């Protein structure tokens, strides 16, 4: 039941708590305060062994979990955002991009690549929340778009792992249109009868929920993830009272009919393999 409490306290608590433990040595679970070595935590796929709290991880971790032997070919590694609007709020957009790149070692909020999952060729896109809140701008849209092209060309399945606050404000109209762009491109994958599995992880909200994240042939989520269109704060303001317990969690979204199932990170790869076996569109290749 720990998930519900976490949502209620706001999603920022967990990251703050994490920072208090010495980096690179120990990991303290923000849910149950269990402390383990980071090695141990990693071995457990960044899931708390005590309470099953799923830590937020990024593209590197998901690629390691899902691709056989952690091996993959990354697409469009160097792709970075333009500054089409010369956007400036408290900071110039290019400066914001640069500082995020420096801080995270990432180029933008998504990585895309091709490799094998239990011997099956496939394309995976995975978002990084630590890069400007996993927000979707032109790079996210373009990389997904090109990843779909590869999947169509190679006749292989596609996985998109969403983890995003929504569209990126600093690209305004451009960001908005990435919703249409990614959704439109997904029609080509569907047309080719290639399976698309959407994995919604903590958090998936806004324009990402309202586009590719909800369009999987199957939509699955990790336990306890925040999943919604409007953020909880906005909904709370709209209704003028406290949100019910468990509102907008994976479990809530499953209950309301928008997910096919929830999967523990330990079973994620196996469940995906089973699903693709069922769709059976590409024959397994020998390793």
């Amino acid at each position: 039941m720990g998930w519900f409490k976490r949502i209620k306290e706001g999603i920022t608590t967990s990251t703050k708590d994490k920072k208090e433990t010495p980096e690179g040595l120990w990991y303290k679970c923000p849910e149950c305060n269990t402390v383990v070595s980071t090695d141990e935590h990693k071995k457990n796929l960044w899931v708390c062994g005590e309470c099953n709290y799923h830590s937020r991880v990024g593209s590197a971790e998901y690629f390691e979990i899902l691709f056989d032997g952690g091996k993959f070919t990354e697409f469009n590694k160097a792709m970075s955002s333009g500054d089409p609007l010369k956007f400036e709020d408290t900071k110039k957009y290019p400066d914001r991009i640069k500082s995020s790149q420096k801080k995270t070692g990432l180029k933008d909020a998504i990585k895309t690549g091709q490799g094998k999952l239990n011997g099956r060729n496939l394309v995976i896109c995975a978002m990084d929340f630590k890069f400007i809140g996993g927000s979707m701008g032109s790079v996210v849209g373009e990389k997904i778009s090109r990843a779909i092209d590869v999947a169509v060309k190679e006749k292989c399945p596609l996985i998109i792992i969403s983890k995003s606050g929504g569209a990126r404000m600093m690209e305004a109209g451009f960001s908005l249109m990435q919703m249409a762009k990614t959704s439109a491109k997904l029609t080509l994958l569907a047309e080719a009868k290639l399976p698309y599995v959407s994995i919604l992880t903590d958090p998936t909200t806004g324009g990402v929920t309202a586009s590719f994240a909800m369009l999987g042939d199957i939509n699955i989520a990790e336990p306890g993830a925040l999943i919604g269109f409007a953020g909880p704060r906005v909904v709370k303001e709209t209704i003028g009272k406290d949100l019910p317990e468990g509102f907008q969690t994976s479990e809530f979204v499953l209950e309301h009919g928008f997910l096919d199932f929830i999967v523990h990170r330990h079973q994620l790869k196996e469940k995906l393999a089973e699903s693709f076996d069922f769709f059976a569109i590409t024959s397994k290749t020998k390793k």
Partner: protein
Amino acid sequence: MPVLLEFEEPIGELLEQLEKAKEISEKGDVDTTKTVRDIEQKIKQKREEIYKNLTPWQRVQVSRHPERPYTLSYIKYLTNETFVELHGDRTVGDDKAMVGGFGKIDGQSFMIIGQQKGINTKMRQYRNFGMPNPEGYRKALRLMKMAEKFNKPVITLIDTPGAFPGLEAEERGQGEAIARNLFEMAKLKVPIICIVIGEGASGGALGIGVGDKVLMLENSWYSVISPENCSTILWRNWDHKIEAADALKLTSSDMLKNKLIDGIIKEPVGGAHIDPEATFENVKEAILTNVEKLKKLTPAKRVEKRIEKFAAMGSIS
């Protein structure tokens, strides 16, 4: 007398003079015909002066002008009252913030769909301020599919401050409803023309906004977020809405320049509400010329071009 926006104040005095001159004329004491004509000329000049250089924030204000025509007014005029409204998403209910149905424009059948705002306090509530629930998007999709089945072009009229961020909207899958529409509209076989007539806020607008031709009325706006909410998120308060409106590049001319829309429909000087009929005529002309061009393409070609157009949107380095 039209409701004046704060930047239109210079017109206010002239409008008062005009009223007075007309009053005198009506009493029959003095012939003020010339005076009336002079003042009207001055008003026209002043309006042109003001409207020539509207800032993005001022355009946002025009797009929200209380007298600005809403979707059903367009539909009524365009279809010459041949419109038959169709209700319901066949699952949950009928969303009053989204209207749709068929009607004839110049003898041609169209499916017309759009967000509907209310014209007074009571109706604003009834229409949920033009903020659809998932049922609205699903009704819209049902009607688009119907149009596809019977090979009729689709017109969407966009005017919303956003999809409704309520509790039930979340329960019933607001995100999924919008996503589904984006997906289905991308591959709909019939021509789709989308026109932003007022506010085009975010996914709530885009949810009926994937078309072969996406047009904006001159004084409408279209972006990922409203200037107020943008200000709140980036500057932590509402005080920067004017800067936010600038930064978002949300006007029709900026959106066209960035190739995020396909065209602009002119409004009368002073905004759509100054002369609704002239506005409706411009919209009608845009619909008819565009649909004529679109009908010349095969469905497959139209869909291909539609997808390619959206796929080309973005700015990367």
